[in-house]
């Protein structure tokens, strides 16, 4: 077991896979010599060289187009889009090309590629560099969508994504890059489409993703210690494929669902979970479903403003105490 930061786990996963398979290549802006603007890919350029780790111009469409073209013809590329907000610049390649090619060609095209990107707020970068957009990807048929919350999950899920024969969008939460966690030694490969239950409690089920997971866990501890409310916490980890069975089972047990989402309110990933729960286990619900989300606004930049808009552990505690009886 080693204690790694979330960002170190990114580099370790990529290195693990690049050592294992020569067809794995990596491209993006400032990822090579500079080790990435978030220092999430330090050491890869040194170990694998400029042929396999390529710095690109500022050309998001070309980056993803190159990833698609090379994946179609035998490589297993990892493409970095520096800030997930920039996906909007190359969204055609993601949503119209990569996502649809296999289906449109009657199964002829294969695209074993990974698009990894730094997602979400908390860094005071302002609205165009802070949004959480994994819900954009969730809505497009043909994309797998992953958003890990811990270093061990980063390593295991990124390795799994690289090995996956389908296109995977891998959302790293930039506010989590510095957090530390224990990662098992040796080769680590997790399974996409599996959620994790981090805590057991009988009064309410909190379902969270990525940066919201540590906040949900902290809130659950305070709820137990200060308010006598016991919460189950589920880390969704994978939006597509979705581990629906785990979520339904854990919500059935308590009858109360609370989602914690960094996405702005409308069509955040939790809306789909709430809909599935209301549809499939309606008769197990013991009260209204609650979604705790960022409000439906672009994120403000100043410290206090940004912190107040993103769901905090304190807000999670407060809303549960006020609404879950």
């Amino acid at each position, binding site marked *: 077991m080693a204690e790694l930061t979330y960002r170190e786990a990114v580099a370790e996963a990529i290195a693990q896979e690049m050592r294992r398979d020569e067809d794995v290549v990596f491209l993006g802006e400032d990822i090579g010599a500079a080790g990435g603007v978030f220092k999430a890919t330090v050491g890869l350029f040194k170990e694998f060289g400029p042929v396999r780790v390529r710095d690109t111009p500022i050309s998001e*469409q070309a980056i993803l187009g190159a990833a698609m*073209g090379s994946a179609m*013809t035998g*490589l297993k590329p990892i493409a970095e889009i520096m800030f997930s907000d920039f996906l909007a610049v190359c969204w055609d390649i993601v949503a119209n090309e990569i996502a649809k090619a296999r*289906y449109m060609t*009657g199964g*002829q095209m294969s695209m074993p590629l990974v698009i990894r990107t730094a997602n979400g707020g908390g860094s005071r970068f302002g609205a165009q560099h802070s949004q959480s957009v994994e819900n954009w990807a969730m809505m497009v048929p043909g994309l797998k969508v992953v958003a890990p919350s811990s270093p061990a999950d980063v390593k295991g899920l990124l390795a799994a994504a690289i090995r996956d024969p389908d296109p995977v969008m891998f959302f790293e939460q930039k506010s989590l890059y510095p957090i530390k966690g224990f990662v098992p030694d040796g080769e680590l490969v997790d399974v996409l489409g599996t959620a994790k239950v981090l805590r057991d409690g009988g009064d309410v089920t909190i379902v969270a993703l990525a940066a919201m997971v540590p906040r949900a866990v902290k809130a659950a501890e305070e709820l137990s210690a200060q308010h006598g409310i016991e919460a189950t916490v589920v880390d969704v980890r994978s939006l597509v494929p979705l581990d629906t069975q785990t979520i339904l089972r854990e919500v059935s047990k308590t009858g109360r669902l609370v989602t914690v989402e960094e996405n702005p309110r409308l069509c955040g990933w939790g809306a789909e979970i709430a809909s599935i729960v209301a549809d499939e286990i309606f008769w197990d619900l013991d009260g209204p479903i609650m979604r705790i989300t960022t409000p439906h606004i672009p994120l403000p930049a100043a410290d206090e403003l940004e912190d107040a808009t993103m769901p905090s552990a304190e807000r999670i505690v407060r809303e549960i105490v006020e609404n879950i009886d």
Partner: protein
Amino acid sequence: MATKPKAAAKGRAKPKAAPKRAAKGKAWIANDDIGEETRLALWRSLLEIRHVEQRAYDLFLQNLIKGTSHLALGHEAVAAGFAIAMEKDDWSFCTYRGHHHTLARGASMEGVLGELMGRECGLLQGKGGSMHLTSVEHGAMGSYAIIGAHLPIAMGAAWTSQYKDTGQVSVCFFGDGTTNIGAFHEALNMAAVWKLPVVFVCENNLYMEYTPIKDVTAVHNPAGDRAASYGLPKIVIDGNDADEVYRTAQTAFAKARAGDGPSLIECLTYRHSGHSRADPGDYRPPGELEAWLKKDPVPRYRDRLAEFGIAQDVIDGMDAEVLAQVDEATEVSKASPPPGLDLIDVDVWADGGTSWRN
């Protein structure tokens, strides 16, 4: 420079035994770098495209082809010239006006017509339609309906070739309008910087959908005049001369295979019909179509073959043979049933499934 002539595309009936010299006894023209076998392959390709596209036109009028269809009547020489110059394992990418490129790489006629008519025998099992013709086994790596998207994708395929050092070339066909979209610039730039073995071919038919390209482009040759921005030479050729296209292709491929990077080639051509089947083309100035019809690549090549001493009955014979093949393919695809509804829920993922949840 002399190069080995390309064998006839896979899947086609082999041409009849090499014809004897012309009965007239005309001497072969000196400097025939292309050679008879290749010329006949070019002729066959031109005929196949012309007859299939013409048939598609007719089938559309009979309401057997639905949706929209972007016909390449008039563009045959570009497709034939490049396809015949390509190796089997080279890759080609084209736009939604891509029937000709897909056929030229060797995809079957019933596959193409069947897909246009939405039948089970279609290349894409009826799932993609006219704008997305693909045959990966022939190296036809997709027809793309979003302008410009496939340029970086074609560049990506070239990256595979460079990385694995296979000598394969990626060929990317697009129209004049594409040169004005962002992805064009990104792909050309990155291909040039990385010196990728990709050949970008602009089929300049003077019109971007309904607007003359000159009205919306800052330079005269939309591709040719931009090449310098990427450190590439300006190459503008007569896209209706199959031989010229063939020669240009060979040069570009040699450069790419030698590791000297991409080419950008502008082929001047013209489309005989409207932008799509729905468009009668009334925006063209009077006389323009007629002038270009005089340069129709197919009759032009018929004359070229005669010039190079190929017997008339060989020329006509191939024409009749291809037409018969098109007739047969038409019947086969008409008889093919619509795709089963079970095809709806397959092939989103590599395992053949579509499920997003457990």
